[in-house]
């Protein structure tokens, strides 16, 4: 799951997979802006066939948060 998500996030943000470490914050460390985050969320919803409601968006701060969220779903 980590590798797969690392690649998705890396591809979306134009980074290498190695830069996408679990403890990194999407906004502060990886410099994702709000449009990047919507794009990422859309990809995750389509790939994993889930819906990510608004109230959950704010909880996805670090890469690890995203991994934990997807695994729970």
């Amino acid at each position: 799951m980590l590798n797969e998500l690392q690649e998705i996030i890396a591809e979306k943000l134009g980074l290498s997979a190695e830069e996408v470490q679990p403890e990194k914050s999407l906004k502060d460390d990886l410099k994702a802006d709000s449009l990047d985050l919507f794009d990422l969320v859309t990809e995750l919803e389509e790939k994993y066939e889930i819906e990510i409601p608004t109230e959950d968006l704010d909880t996805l701060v670090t890469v690890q948060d995203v991994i934990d969220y997807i695994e729970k779903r």
Partner: protein
Amino acid sequence: MTESKIMKTRVTELLGISYPVIQGGMAHIAEYHLASAVSEAGGLGVIASANGSAERVKKEIEALRERTDQPFGVNIMLLSPHAAEVAQMAAEEKVPVITTGAGNPEKYMSLWKSAGIKVIPVVASVALAKRMERCGADAVIAEGCEAGGHIGELTSMTLIPQIADEVEIPVIGAGGVGDGRGLAAMLILGAEGVQVGTRFVVAEESIAHENYKQKILKARDIDSVVTGRSCGHPIRSVRNPHTRKYIEMEKSGASFEELEYLALGSLRRAVEEGDLENGNFMAGQIAGLIHKEQPCREILEELVTEAEALLGGSKPWER
């Protein structure tokens, strides 16, 4: 009013208007005089809430309703500290249309939809447009970076067709429309209506200071500048000493707080005082094309008549 026979699109039908033209929700400028004139003339007039309180915006709505019983909209700026209370008030007032900017309006969607309101978020990306469609938006406004005020990254030329390809709901194109060529182009790109800002700033019914109107009427193409890229909040204006100072400060690494301080109140100074030195004259890149102060009725009729002539009877929105 003249009804445009070949300009009926899903947008005109959705909003109950004659022409598929929405007036932009420009802070301080989009108030009841302008909005009621646009609605009376067959477009959709829009009141901008900006950072105003619910009480203040409600007064604007009441004043507009005294002047017209045509459909109108309220633009809600989601970063406003009063956004939640304005959202609630707009639902209680059962405004016909709400447009939103600066964020994701999802959390208010069920409140507004159950009040029978048409909801049209401004979007700057395909992913956001798709998300808005999924949560019940009636249409989206796809705004390219040619627009005045707060802008995204993509141009109208590239953003509108990409969004039109990915959503089923109507797309309203914004950014760069100053005459019938822009309207026709948007319709060909996949939009079924347009949002126009800059041209309405110089409408006769617009309360913008005469200096603001003259800045736009005298602007050339190369006078369009963007401030605030370094803060992540780019804003497009007609250049003047204020923008020059701001950009120099950005280049020399000024802090976010210093730049914020410079920007504070600058739009109001432009709109209300016509302050040519310290005002921020927000306007789109199309300002260089606009040379006349006209009544809203003339603006709308020209936009549509020119576009119709160019389209020669074809209806790209029906493909």
